[in-house]
Every structure is written in C-alpha cells, then in structure tokens.
C-alpha cells in the first residue's frame, strides 16, 4: 500500500447572470415616516448574503447609515419582479437595480429637504450620519427623519424610488452565430493538494489554495464565507455526492442522509484564499459576487490532482474509490505523474 501525493490546478472564467432571454431585476425603495428606508425585492437570500449586500448598496446610494435601511425580500406578491437568485447574478443584477431605486429616492429626499431649508437641492449633500446639509455650510442642515416627516405630513410627497436593471436579450447573428451570452465575468484559479491510497482508492484532500477575482468584494467576510463553503461543496461533488451511483440501476441509490455521501466535519481541508479586487465597470460599486464559481473550479482541480497522484483520468463524477481502483488496475498499477 502506498499513499501518493498529487497536485491539481484549474482555473475558470465564470459568467455573471445570463442574457439569452433578457435578465431583469427590479427594486423599490421608500422611506418610512421616521426617515428609515425600506428596500423591497422579490429576489431571495438563500444564505449567500444578498440581503446584507443590497442593504450596504442601498445605504451607500441613499447616503444614509446602514442601520437605517431595511431589506424586505422573497415575496413575489408584494415585491417587484425579479428573475431570481441563481447564475451568480444576485449582487450584480439586484445591486444595480437597488442603486437605481435608491438614487431616485435620494433625489426625492433631497428635493424635500431643499423645500424645508429653502435652498436648491443641487446644493445639498448627505453626511452619512442621518443629516442633509448645505455643501460648505454644514450648520444649515436638517435630519433625514425631519425631512421624512415634512415630506409625508406637510409636503404630501413620497420619498421613494423605482429601479430596474435589465441585461437585454442577445440575439445570435444569423450569419456568424455571434452573440453576447454574458456581459460580465468573474475569474478564479485554484490548486488542490491531495493524497490517494492506491490500495483503498481513498482520496484525502489536504489543502486548497485559491485566488478569486470577484470585482470589488463588497463584503469581504461574506465573500470569504461563500468561498470556503463553496469549496467544501466542490470537494463533495468531486468525490462523494450522487443520487445515482450505479445509474441506470437505482437499487443502490441513497435513501437518506445517512447513505448520501458528503464530507463530514472531519473531512475539512485547509483552504487559503486570496481575493483579488478588480472592480467591474457595469457592476454595483464594482462588485460581481462569487456565487456558483465557489464550487466549480474545485472539481477539475481534484480530477487533475488524482491524475497527478496515480495516473488515473476519471471523467465521471463523483470520483469514487471504486473508479480510482479500476483505473489503477487498468493501468497495471499506480502511475504517479510527479508534479509534487
């Protein structure tokens, strides 16, 4: 029995969202009577942090403290239309819609404040702490709370905004077939170090080193969290998970969580992450978002590392011990490629 070390590399250009049939997101923003702002979306936070990031974006675009912004999501009856949380589109599409809605609401807010202060709205600025003041003369100021009260109880005006961000459908050129399936890419490169036991076929992932380019990381901790969790899922899909292990014979299909294989807390590999920030032009404050790309490069990197370790090239997932042992047998023994 020998344990062979292997190293595998993979990189990825990952498209943000899709525009084959048009890809819109909408947002509505309105002020409550006490000068807080509600962002209404029908997009869903699956745990990836969409609510946190759209809240940050709305606060930035409105010029108000983040504590004064609430995000209401996931009700397609009461929220404006959204294509949904998929295709790594959340930060980019919803974020852009929120910026537009918040910008319109900010304009209404500054107009209302201008009436109260008897100045021109273009001379006003927000201080980020809940006040609106005359540029260069911060003593001429009104709180956003007082502005909202005046707007709604005196001026008869709503402090609200509508936003839609649409990537229009891309038609294929009839002569060349050329089209723009996507407008914005994120990028990653990832190295996996692992060990393969040539007697049992068992793979142990030792370490992952990755570099992700996600535009601006609007919330660094959320980006890191997604990358760590997503890489775990990548390992899981590379080595363990399948509902049809002996397709088309379903008699061995897992019936529950006990039989459905996935890495346990004891199978966690060290993961070192470098996040590169290269703000994207059409992205909200430059943020593209990690999304599905967290898991994707792990799979080919694991497959390449296994090839490096024992010379077995598996093109069916998951790469189970059985497949590795059959490959070693077909090759007449382990054939380390020696990248390490």
């Amino acid at each position, binding site marked *: 029995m020998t344990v062979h070390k292997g190293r595998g590399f993979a990189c990825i250009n990952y498209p943000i969202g899709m525009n084959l049939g048009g890809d819109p997101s909408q947002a509505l923003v309105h002020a409550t009577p006490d000068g807080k702002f509600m962002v209404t979306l029908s997009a869903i936070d699956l745990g990836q942090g969409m609510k946190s990031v759209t809240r940050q974006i709305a606060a930035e675009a409105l010029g108000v403290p983040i504590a004064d912004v609430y995000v209401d999501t996931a009700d397609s009856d009461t929220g404006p239309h959204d294509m949904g949380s998929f295709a790594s589109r959340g930060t980019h599409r919803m974020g852009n819609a929120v910026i537009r809605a918040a910008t319109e609401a900010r304009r209404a807010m500054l107009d209302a404040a201008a009436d109260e202060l008897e100045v021109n709205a273009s001379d006003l600025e927000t201080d980020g702490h809940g006040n609106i003041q005359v540029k260069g003369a911060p003593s001429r100021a009104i709180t956003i709370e007082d502005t909202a009260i005046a707007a709604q109880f005196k001026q008869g005006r709503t402090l609200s905004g509508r936003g839609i961000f649409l990537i229009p459908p891309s038609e294929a050129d009839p002569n060349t077939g050329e089209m723009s399936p996507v407008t914005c890419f994120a990028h990653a490169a990832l190295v996996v170090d692992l060990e393969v036991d040539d007697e049992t076929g068992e793979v142990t992932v030792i370490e992952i080193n990755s570099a992700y380019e996600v535009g601006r990381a609007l919330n660094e901790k959320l980006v890191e969290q997604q990358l760590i969790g997503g890489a775990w899922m990548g390992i899981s899909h590379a080595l363990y998970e399948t509902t049809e292990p002996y397709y088309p014979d379903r008699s061995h299909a897992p019936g529950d969580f006990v039989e459905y294989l996935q890495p*346990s807390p004891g199978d966690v590999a060290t993961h070192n992450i470098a996040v590169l920030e290269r703000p994207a032009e059409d992205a909200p404050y430059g943020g593209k978002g990690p999304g599905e790309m967290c898991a994707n490069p792990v799979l080919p990197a694991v497959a390449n590392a296994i090839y490096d370790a024992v010379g077995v090239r598996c093109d069916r997932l998951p790469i189970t011990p059985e497949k590795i042992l059959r490959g070693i047998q077909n090759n007449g023994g382990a054939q380390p490629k020696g990248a390490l």
Partner: protein
Amino acid sequence: MTKSPVQFTLNGTETGVFVNGGANLLDVIRREAGDLAPKLGCAQGGCGACTVMIDGETHLACLTLAETVEGKRVETATSLANGPQLHPLQKAFVEGFAAQCGFCTPGMLMAAKALLDANPSPTREQVTEAIAGNICRCTGYEPIINAILTAAAELRGRISA
C-alpha cells in the same frame, strides 16, 4: 385517539401539553409549545437539525417520543440568549460567519452547548466529533468549528475572571 398529558420544563418554563400516543418531541416543541428553534430536516435522525438537550444530554427531537420527557428538562437554542444578550456560542457564530442559510444552526448550537458543558476545553478533534451528527450544506464546517473553539475560550475566560 386518546391524548396523554406530558409535563416538562422547556427552556426553564414549566410546560404542559396533551399529546397523541407516538407524537414526537419535535412536533410538540414546535406546534404545541410554539418554539420554532429546532428544525425539521430529515425526520429520521440523519441531519441533526432538531438537536435539543434533555437533562443536559443531546437528543434528536424528531426521534424522541414526547411522552418520554415527562418530568425532564428540555432545552432548545431558544434557551441560550438572555434577552438581547447573546450566549457566547451565538456571538461566536455571528462574528465568525458560521451560518449562511441558518437551518442547521439551532442544532449545531445545542450540540456545541452540550460539548462545552461537559468539556470546557475541547480540542479541535473533539469539537469535530461533537458536531459529526449535524449536517451543514453551506459553510464547509470550518467556520462552525472555529466559532465553537472561540466560544469555549471566551467561556473559560469568564470562569477564570
């Protein structure tokens, strides 16, 4: 069907319910007592989302007959916070980004609570072992393990202070 009375302490509060024979504790906690902290994941003991503590030991509420907790002390993740004051475990989970969708979190917290009650200075391996029956599909476990170790250190600091 005849209902039976069951009296137990739920998160420090005397609780009395009438349950059908065969009713499981998770249903009783969620539907009768209205504590929605423990979650129904697989309903067959495979995922750990329903983990609660009964007389200080972890149990899977979905596999526990409600009638067996007569006279016992049942604690869910709801017991951890003291008003707005989060338990060190909850604080460490929040600050360590140890939750994404959050569905496994109440079970993870109780598995961790039982561990730290019994062993205030667990090793990383002991933490890993303690949550081995709880499935998380979002975090990759590492932030959870780190959060539990952080909370353990904070709790030890409180005791020695």
